[in-house]
Protein backbone atom coordinates (compact mmCIF):
# COMPACT_ATOMS: atom_id res chain seq x y z
CA UNK A 1 0.00 0.00 0.00
CA UNK A 2 1.17 3.53 -0.72
CA UNK A 3 -0.08 6.86 0.50
CA UNK A 4 0.53 10.24 -1.09
CA UNK A 5 -0.66 13.72 -0.35
CA UNK A 6 -1.81 15.90 -3.22
CA UNK A 7 -4.07 18.95 -3.35
CA UNK A 8 -6.51 19.18 -6.26
CA UNK A 9 -9.29 21.72 -6.15
CA UNK A 10 -12.52 21.22 -8.12
CA UNK A 11 -11.29 23.06 -11.21
CA UNK A 12 -8.21 20.82 -11.26
CA UNK A 13 -10.21 17.59 -11.53
CA UNK A 14 -8.70 16.83 -14.96
CA UNK A 15 -5.22 17.10 -13.45
CA UNK A 16 -6.28 14.83 -10.59
CA UNK A 17 -7.48 12.24 -13.11
CA UNK A 18 -4.19 12.57 -15.01
CA UNK A 19 -2.21 12.01 -11.79
CA UNK A 20 -4.24 8.92 -10.83
CA UNK A 21 -3.89 7.53 -14.36
CA UNK A 22 -0.11 7.95 -14.18
CA UNK A 23 -0.08 6.05 -10.90
CA UNK A 24 -2.17 3.29 -12.49
CA UNK A 25 0.34 2.97 -15.34
CA UNK A 26 3.08 2.67 -12.72
CA UNK A 27 1.25 -0.15 -10.92
CA UNK A 28 -0.67 1.74 -8.23
CA UNK A 29 -4.47 1.94 -8.29
CA UNK A 30 -6.24 4.44 -6.09
CA UNK A 31 -8.36 2.86 -3.40
CA UNK A 32 -9.40 5.75 -1.17
CA UNK A 33 -9.04 9.46 -0.65
CA UNK A 34 -9.37 11.29 2.64
CA UNK A 35 -9.25 15.03 1.97
CA UNK A 36 -5.81 15.33 0.32
CA UNK A 37 -4.46 11.93 1.27
CA UNK A 38 -4.62 9.24 -1.42
CA UNK A 39 -4.28 5.53 -0.68
CA UNK A 40 -3.05 3.26 -3.47
CA UNK A 41 -2.92 -0.51 -3.73
CA UNK A 42 -0.36 -2.34 -5.88
CA UNK A 43 -1.64 -3.78 -9.16
CA UNK A 44 0.10 -4.98 -12.29
CA UNK A 45 1.20 -1.96 -14.27
CA UNK A 46 -1.49 -1.44 -16.88
CA UNK A 47 -2.77 0.79 -19.60
CA UNK A 48 -6.16 2.28 -19.14
CA UNK A 49 -7.44 5.57 -17.88
CA UNK A 50 -9.01 7.04 -14.80
CA UNK A 51 -11.57 9.80 -15.17
CA UNK A 52 -13.61 11.75 -12.66
CA UNK A 53 -17.25 12.74 -12.81
CA UNK A 54 -19.83 14.37 -10.56
CA UNK A 55 -23.45 13.31 -10.36
CA UNK A 56 -26.34 14.13 -8.08
CA UNK A 57 -27.28 11.38 -5.65
CA UNK A 58 -30.79 10.93 -7.07
CA UNK A 59 -29.41 10.08 -10.51
CA UNK A 60 -26.84 7.53 -9.45
CA UNK A 61 -28.42 4.09 -10.00
CA UNK A 62 -29.28 4.63 -13.66
CA UNK A 63 -26.08 6.56 -14.36
CA UNK A 64 -23.88 3.93 -12.65
CA UNK A 65 -25.51 1.08 -14.58
CA UNK A 66 -24.97 2.89 -17.89
CA UNK A 67 -21.33 3.57 -17.07
CA UNK A 68 -20.74 -0.07 -16.13
CA UNK A 69 -22.49 -1.27 -19.30
CA UNK A 70 -20.04 0.95 -21.22
CA UNK A 71 -17.06 -0.79 -19.62
CA UNK A 72 -16.23 1.57 -16.75
CA UNK A 73 -15.29 0.26 -13.29
CA UNK A 74 -16.11 2.39 -10.28
CA UNK A 75 -13.01 2.65 -8.09
CA UNK A 76 -14.45 4.85 -5.37
CA UNK A 77 -16.81 7.71 -4.77
CA UNK A 78 -16.92 10.66 -2.38
CA UNK A 79 -20.14 12.28 -1.18
CA UNK A 80 -20.19 16.03 -1.60
CA UNK A 81 -22.87 18.73 -1.83
CA UNK A 82 -25.82 16.42 -2.43
CA UNK A 83 -23.98 14.41 -5.03
CA UNK A 84 -20.89 12.26 -5.43
CA UNK A 85 -17.48 12.60 -7.01
CA UNK A 86 -16.99 9.34 -8.89
CA UNK A 87 -13.63 7.84 -9.82
CA UNK A 88 -13.92 5.60 -12.88
CA UNK A 89 -11.42 3.32 -14.58
CA UNK A 90 -11.58 2.06 -18.16
CA UNK A 91 -9.25 -0.43 -19.86
CA UNK A 92 -9.22 1.66 -23.05
CA UNK A 93 -6.79 4.54 -22.51
CA UNK A 94 -8.73 6.70 -24.99
CA UNK A 95 -12.14 6.20 -23.35
CA UNK A 96 -13.99 9.37 -22.34
CA UNK A 97 -17.07 9.88 -20.21
CA UNK A 98 -18.10 12.97 -22.19
CA UNK A 99 -17.67 12.98 -25.96
CA UNK A 100 -19.39 16.23 -26.86
CA UNK A 101 -19.05 19.82 -25.69
CA UNK A 102 -22.69 20.25 -24.70
CA UNK A 103 -22.74 17.58 -21.98
CA UNK A 104 -19.24 18.53 -20.77
CA UNK A 105 -20.34 22.17 -20.49
CA UNK A 106 -23.40 21.08 -18.50
CA UNK A 107 -21.16 19.25 -16.02
CA UNK A 108 -18.82 22.22 -15.59
CA UNK A 109 -21.79 24.58 -15.09
CA UNK A 110 -23.17 22.31 -12.39
CA UNK A 111 -19.81 22.20 -10.61
CA UNK A 112 -19.48 25.96 -10.84
CA UNK A 113 -23.01 26.54 -9.51
CA UNK A 114 -22.64 24.20 -6.53
CA UNK A 115 -19.16 25.16 -5.45
CA UNK A 116 -19.78 28.88 -5.89
CA UNK A 117 -22.93 28.55 -3.80
CA UNK A 118 -20.93 26.86 -1.06
CA UNK A 119 -18.21 29.49 -1.29
CA UNK A 120 -20.67 32.37 -1.01
CA UNK A 121 -22.34 30.69 1.95
CA UNK A 122 -19.03 30.14 3.70
CA UNK A 123 -17.92 33.73 3.15
CA UNK A 124 -21.28 35.01 4.40
CA UNK A 125 -20.94 32.92 7.55
CA UNK A 126 -17.47 34.32 8.12
CA UNK A 127 -18.82 37.87 7.85
CA UNK A 128 -21.42 36.98 10.47
CA UNK A 129 -18.64 35.63 12.67
CA UNK A 130 -16.64 38.82 12.14
CA UNK A 131 -19.65 40.90 13.12
CA UNK A 132 -20.15 38.87 16.28
CA UNK A 133 -16.48 39.18 17.16
CA UNK A 134 -16.70 42.94 16.73
CA UNK A 135 -19.75 43.02 18.99
CA UNK A 136 -18.14 40.96 21.72
CA UNK A 137 -14.79 42.69 21.72
CA UNK A 138 -12.56 42.60 18.69
CA UNK A 139 -8.87 42.09 19.04
CA UNK A 140 -6.39 42.47 16.18
CA UNK A 141 -5.68 38.74 16.36
CA UNK A 142 -9.31 37.66 16.18
CA UNK A 143 -10.29 40.06 13.44
CA UNK A 144 -7.11 39.28 11.56
CA UNK A 145 -7.77 35.55 11.69
CA UNK A 146 -11.35 35.87 10.53
CA UNK A 147 -10.40 38.45 7.91
CA UNK A 148 -7.71 36.12 6.64
CA UNK A 149 -10.17 33.26 6.49
CA UNK A 150 -12.62 35.40 4.52
CA UNK A 151 -9.89 36.40 2.11
CA UNK A 152 -8.66 32.84 1.73
CA UNK A 153 -12.12 31.43 1.09
CA UNK A 154 -12.96 34.19 -1.37
CA UNK A 155 -9.70 33.63 -3.23
CA UNK A 156 -10.15 29.85 -3.35
CA UNK A 157 -13.75 29.84 -4.51
CA UNK A 158 -13.11 32.82 -6.73
CA UNK A 159 -10.28 31.00 -8.47
CA UNK A 160 -12.56 27.99 -8.82
CA UNK A 161 -15.28 30.13 -10.41
CA UNK A 162 -12.88 31.87 -12.77
CA UNK A 163 -11.18 28.68 -13.89
CA UNK A 164 -14.41 26.78 -14.46
CA UNK A 165 -15.82 29.76 -16.36
CA UNK A 166 -12.71 29.82 -18.53
CA UNK A 167 -13.12 26.10 -19.29
CA UNK A 168 -16.81 26.58 -20.10
CA UNK A 169 -16.14 29.50 -22.45
CA UNK A 170 -13.39 27.57 -24.21
CA UNK A 171 -15.79 24.70 -24.88
CA UNK A 172 -18.57 27.09 -25.93
CA UNK A 173 -16.25 28.81 -28.43
CA UNK A 174 -15.31 25.44 -29.88
CA UNK A 175 -18.97 24.49 -30.09
CA UNK A 176 -19.90 27.81 -31.77
CA UNK A 177 -17.09 27.46 -34.29
CA UNK A 178 -18.22 23.96 -35.24
CA UNK A 179 -21.83 25.07 -35.66
CA UNK A 180 -20.87 28.20 -37.60
CA UNK A 181 -22.02 30.63 -34.93
CA UNK A 182 -18.64 32.30 -34.40
Amino acid at each position, binding site marked *: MMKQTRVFWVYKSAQEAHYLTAQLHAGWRVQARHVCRYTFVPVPAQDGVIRL*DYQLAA*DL*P*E*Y*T*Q*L*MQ*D*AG*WTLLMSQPVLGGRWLYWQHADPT*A*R*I*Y*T*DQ*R*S*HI*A*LLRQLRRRWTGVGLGAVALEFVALYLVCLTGATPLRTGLIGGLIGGLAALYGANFVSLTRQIRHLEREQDWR*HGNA
Partner: protein
Amino acid sequence: MSTTDQLPMSETAFYILLALRQPMHGYGVIQHIEAITAGRLVLGAGTMYGTLKKMQHDGLIDLVATTDSRKIYQATPAGIALLRAERARLQELVQNAEVLDDEAD
Protein backbone atom coordinates in the same frame (compact mmCIF):
# COMPACT_ATOMS: atom_id res chain seq x y z
CA MET B 1 -40.29 25.42 -27.11
CA SER B 2 -41.14 25.17 -30.82
CA THR B 3 -39.49 22.71 -33.16
CA THR B 4 -37.55 25.40 -35.01
CA ASP B 5 -36.17 26.72 -31.71
CA GLN B 6 -34.45 23.38 -31.23
CA LEU B 7 -32.70 23.40 -34.59
CA PRO B 8 -30.01 22.73 -35.57
CA MET B 9 -29.63 19.55 -33.62
CA SER B 10 -26.19 18.36 -32.65
CA GLU B 11 -25.04 15.17 -34.30
CA THR B 12 -25.13 13.46 -30.90
CA ALA B 13 -28.73 14.48 -30.18
CA PHE B 14 -29.85 13.60 -33.71
CA TYR B 15 -28.49 10.07 -33.57
CA ILE B 16 -29.78 9.45 -30.04
CA LEU B 17 -33.29 10.53 -30.98
CA LEU B 18 -33.10 8.56 -34.23
CA ALA B 19 -32.13 5.41 -32.31
CA LEU B 20 -35.03 5.90 -29.91
CA ARG B 21 -37.65 5.50 -32.61
CA GLN B 22 -37.60 2.05 -31.05
CA PRO B 23 -37.61 1.46 -27.27
CA MET B 24 -34.04 1.13 -26.08
CA HIS B 25 -31.88 1.59 -23.00
CA GLY B 26 -28.91 3.91 -22.89
CA TYR B 27 -26.13 1.45 -23.65
CA GLY B 28 -28.20 -0.07 -26.40
CA VAL B 29 -28.38 3.38 -27.97
CA ILE B 30 -24.59 3.73 -27.73
CA GLN B 31 -24.10 0.38 -29.45
CA HIS B 32 -26.72 1.13 -32.12
CA ILE B 33 -25.14 4.47 -33.04
CA GLU B 34 -21.68 2.95 -33.18
CA ALA B 35 -23.01 0.30 -35.55
CA ILE B 36 -24.89 2.60 -37.94
CA THR B 37 -21.96 5.03 -38.15
CA ALA B 38 -19.49 2.17 -38.74
CA GLY B 39 -17.61 3.01 -35.56
CA ARG B 40 -17.20 6.71 -36.34
CA LEU B 41 -19.41 7.88 -33.50
CA VAL B 42 -18.87 6.24 -30.10
CA LEU B 43 -20.75 8.23 -27.49
CA GLY B 44 -19.50 8.55 -23.95
CA ALA B 45 -21.76 7.17 -21.26
CA GLY B 46 -21.83 10.53 -19.50
CA THR B 47 -22.87 12.25 -22.70
CA MET B 48 -25.57 9.65 -23.27
CA TYR B 49 -26.89 9.94 -19.74
CA GLY B 50 -26.98 13.75 -19.75
CA THR B 51 -28.62 13.92 -23.17
CA LEU B 52 -31.30 11.37 -22.18
CA LYS B 53 -32.16 13.43 -19.11
CA LYS B 54 -32.37 16.63 -21.13
CA MET B 55 -34.49 15.04 -23.86
CA GLN B 56 -36.84 13.60 -21.25
CA HIS B 57 -37.11 17.02 -19.62
CA ASP B 58 -37.87 18.60 -23.03
CA GLY B 59 -40.56 16.04 -23.84
CA LEU B 60 -38.68 14.51 -26.76
CA ILE B 61 -38.47 11.04 -25.20
CA ASP B 62 -40.47 9.14 -22.60
CA LEU B 63 -39.50 6.48 -20.11
CA VAL B 64 -41.42 3.40 -21.25
CA ALA B 65 -40.04 0.60 -19.04
CA THR B 66 -37.45 -0.28 -16.42
CA THR B 67 -35.58 -3.58 -16.30
CA ASP B 68 -33.01 -4.20 -13.53
CA SER B 69 -31.38 -0.79 -13.22
CA ARG B 70 -31.75 -0.03 -16.90
CA LYS B 71 -34.35 2.48 -18.03
CA ILE B 72 -35.84 2.10 -21.49
CA TYR B 73 -36.77 5.20 -23.43
CA GLN B 74 -38.60 5.92 -26.67
CA ALA B 75 -39.06 9.02 -28.79
CA THR B 76 -42.34 10.90 -28.38
CA PRO B 77 -44.34 12.41 -31.27
CA ALA B 78 -42.60 15.71 -30.48
CA GLY B 79 -39.24 13.97 -30.78
CA ILE B 80 -40.18 12.44 -34.14
CA ALA B 81 -41.37 15.85 -35.37
CA LEU B 82 -38.01 17.34 -34.40
CA LEU B 83 -36.18 14.57 -36.29
CA ARG B 84 -38.24 15.28 -39.42
CA ALA B 85 -37.51 18.99 -39.13
CA GLU B 86 -33.79 18.32 -38.78
CA ARG B 87 -33.86 15.93 -41.73
CA ALA B 88 -35.50 18.65 -43.85
CA ARG B 89 -32.81 21.12 -42.80
CA LEU B 90 -30.04 18.66 -43.65
CA GLN B 91 -31.63 17.82 -47.00
CA GLU B 92 -31.69 21.51 -47.90
CA LEU B 93 -28.05 21.80 -46.86
CA VAL B 94 -26.96 18.80 -48.95
CA GLN B 95 -29.01 20.00 -51.94
CA ASN B 96 -27.35 23.40 -51.84
CA ALA B 97 -23.96 21.79 -51.52
CA GLU B 98 -24.45 19.97 -54.83
CA VAL B 99 -23.02 23.04 -56.56
CA LEU B 100 -19.65 21.59 -55.60
CA ASP B 101 -20.19 18.92 -58.25
CA ASP B 102 -20.52 21.65 -60.88
CA GLU B 103 -17.27 23.34 -60.02
CA ALA B 104 -14.04 22.37 -61.71
CA ASP B 105 -11.44 20.65 -59.46
